[in-house]
C-alpha cells in the first residue's frame, strides 16, 4: 500500500451520497460497462464522493437562469446535398475488428425465430 493510499484510508469518511447497488447496476447498463465486484465498490464510493462535491452547486441560486449549452449562438449549418468525399469503404473497413464480405461483422442481433417471423410478416 502506497503512502497515498494509507493517507486516503485514514482520511476516509464515507460519502454522504450513498450509491446503491441498483443505481450502479443501472449506470453500468447506460454506460455499457461490465464492472468487477471490486470496480463496482470503488465506483460506488467514487461517484458518491464526486456527487458530494458537485452538491456545492446547490448553494448557487440559478432560478430564472437559462441553461447555457454553447457560448455562441449555434445555427444549423446547411450545404448542398452533394457527395464530396470519395468511396471510403476500404479505408473504413481497414480498422474493423471483424469483417465479412465487405461489411462489419457483429454478433447475431436477431434470433432465428424472430428473424423467421419478420420474414413471414414481410411477405
Amino acid at each position: 500500500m502506497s503512502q497515498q493510499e494509507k493517507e486516503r484510508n485514514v482520511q476516509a469518511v464515507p460519502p454522504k451520497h450513498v450509491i446503491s447497488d441498483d443505481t450502479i447496476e443501472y449506470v453500468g447498463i447506460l454506460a455499457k460497462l461490465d464492472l468487477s465486484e471490486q470496480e463496482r465498490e470503488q465506483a460506488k464510493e467514487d461517484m458518491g464522493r464526486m456527487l458530494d462535491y458537485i452538491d456545492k452547486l446547490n448553494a448557487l441560486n440559478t432560478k430564472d437562469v437559462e441553461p447555457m449549452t454553447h457560448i455562441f449562438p449555434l445555427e444549423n449549418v446547411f450545404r448542398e446535398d452533394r457527395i464530396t468525399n470519395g468511396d471510403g469503404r476500404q479505408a473504413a473497413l481497414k480498422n474493423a475488428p471483424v469483417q465479412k464480405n465487405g461489411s462489419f461483422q457483429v454478433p447475431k442481433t436477431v434470433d432465428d425465430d424472430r428473424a423467421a417471423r419478420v420474414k413471414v410478416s414481410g411477405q
Partner: protein
Amino acid sequence: MELTALTAAALAEKIQKKELTAKAAVQACLQQMRRLEPELNSFVTIDEKGALAQAEEVQQKIDAGELTGPLAGVPIALKDNLCTEGLRTTCSSRMLEQFTPGYTAEAVRRLQKAGMIILGKTNMDEFAMGSTTETSYFGATKNPWNLAHVPGGSSGGSCAAVAAEECFLALGSDTGGSIRQPSAFCGVTGIKPTYGTVSRYGLIAYGSSLDQIGPIARDVMDCALLLDVIAGWDAKDSTSIRQDGAGGMPPGGYGFAEALRAEEAAGMVKCLQGLRIGIPRDYFGQGLDPEVKTSVLAAAQTLACLGAEVEEFHLGLVDYAIPAYYVIACAEASSNLARFDGVKYGHRAAAYEGLHQMYKRTRSEGFGPEVKRRIMLGAFVLSSGYYDAYYLKALRTKALIKQEFDKAFARYDLLLGPTAPTTAPRLGESLADPIQMYLGDVYTVAVNLAGLPSMSLSCGIDPAGLPIGLQLIADCFGESRLLRAAYALEQTRTERRCPLAQTEQPGAEQTIFAPAGPSDAGSEPAERSE
C-alpha cells in the same frame, strides 16, 4: 548552439536561407528522441520514416520556392488524439491501440499545407481525461525538468517533448486546462484559443462544447506563428467560427505573428500603455503555493512597469467552476465515447455471448479506470431523474460564470493569475485521490466553460527546479491582446533551457525574470558554482 535549441521561427528562416535543411532539423529531433525517450516517454508513436520522407518532399518545395511560409520545414509533434491518415492514433488508450485513421484532422492538414513535418504522436492522459499524463495506457510521461515529477496533462507528452527539444512545436488540446497546465509544468508556452477558432474536425472528442486544439511552443512568437497556421473557419466543424468580420474577427486571417513583429519593430517601449489587467484576488487564496504566488505577482509587477494598469478585483463564482465543469465534461464524454463499441474500429473483446455482452466486455477491457469513472458519472448526471438536478444545474452555473467574466472584461482587457496552484507534483501522487487532482484545475476550467482564449507562460522556477506558469485570459477573440502582453513579458525574461535538453555543457544561466530576481539557487552561473 545546438540545432534543437533554435526557435521554430529561427529554424524556418535558416531553412529558407539554405543554411540548414528540413532533413537536418528532423534528424536532430530524432537524435534527441533516441537519447531521451527511453526515460521521458513523451511519444506514443515516432514516425521516423514518414518524417524523413516529408522532410525530403518539403525541402524540394522550399528549394523550388513553392513553400515560403514562416514555419515551412519545421518538425512538429501531435497529441495522439488528432487523427492522422495512415498513422496510428491511440488517444493513449487500449481501446485505440491499433487504430489507424482513414483521414487527417483539419488542424493537421493545415500544418501539412504550411510545409510542417509531423514527427509523431505524443502521449496523453487516456482520452484526455487527467491532469498528469499518468492515465495513459502506454505509461506515464516524465517531466523533463525533473524526471521524478509529472509533466502535467492531459497534453503532457506534447509539452514535455517541446521542453526537451524533441520537437520545435507541438499541438495539444484543451478541455479544462489540458494545454495550459502541462505548459506551466514543463516551462513552455501554450494557448487555448477562443472556442471555435481552430476546427475540431478530426480531434477525437472528449467534451465537445469545451474542446479546443491549440499551439505549444518554447516562446510566444512561435506560438503566434503556429496559431496563425491552424486557426480559421472550416465547413467540417459546425461550431467553427467564420472569419468574415462578424463576431470581431478580422477579415482575411488573424495575422497574430505579424502584429507581434510590428510591435517589435516599434521597439516595444511602453508597449502595454493603457492595457488594463485585472488580477482576480480569488485566484490567490487558499491552496496556492507561495512560490507560485510570488512568481506570478512579480510578473504582474513587470507588466505594470511596461505600462499596463494592473489592479486586483473580485471575480465571482470561482469555486463553482470545477463542479460545473466535471458535470458537463463527463456528460459529454459519456455521449462521445459511446461510439467505442467494438464494431467499426478499436478494441473488441475476444470472447462474448451476444451483442450486448460484446459491447460491455469490449468497453470494460478497452477503457482505463479514469475514463470509466467519468463515463459513469456522465451517464448518471444525464439519466432521467438526475438530469435537471445535475446537468441542467451545471449549464445554468456555466451561464452565471460567463456573466462573471463578462463583468470582468467590461473593466479589464486581460486577466492574470497562476495557471495551476502548484508546480508539477511527483509521479504517483495524484491518481489516488481524484477529487484532489480535479481541484488542481481550479484556475483553468472556467475559461473553457466561458469559451475564452487563454495562455500559459513560464514565469519562474521553484527551488526544486520546476517551472512556474502564469495564465493570461482575454475576452472571446482577444488572442492578439494575449499575445501582445505575453510577448512584452517574455522580452524581460532571460531564456532558460531545460537542462535535460542540453547535450552541450550549459553556460551561464540567469533568473527567468531579470528585474524581479528572487533568490534562486539554480540560477547561479555555472562558472561561479565551481
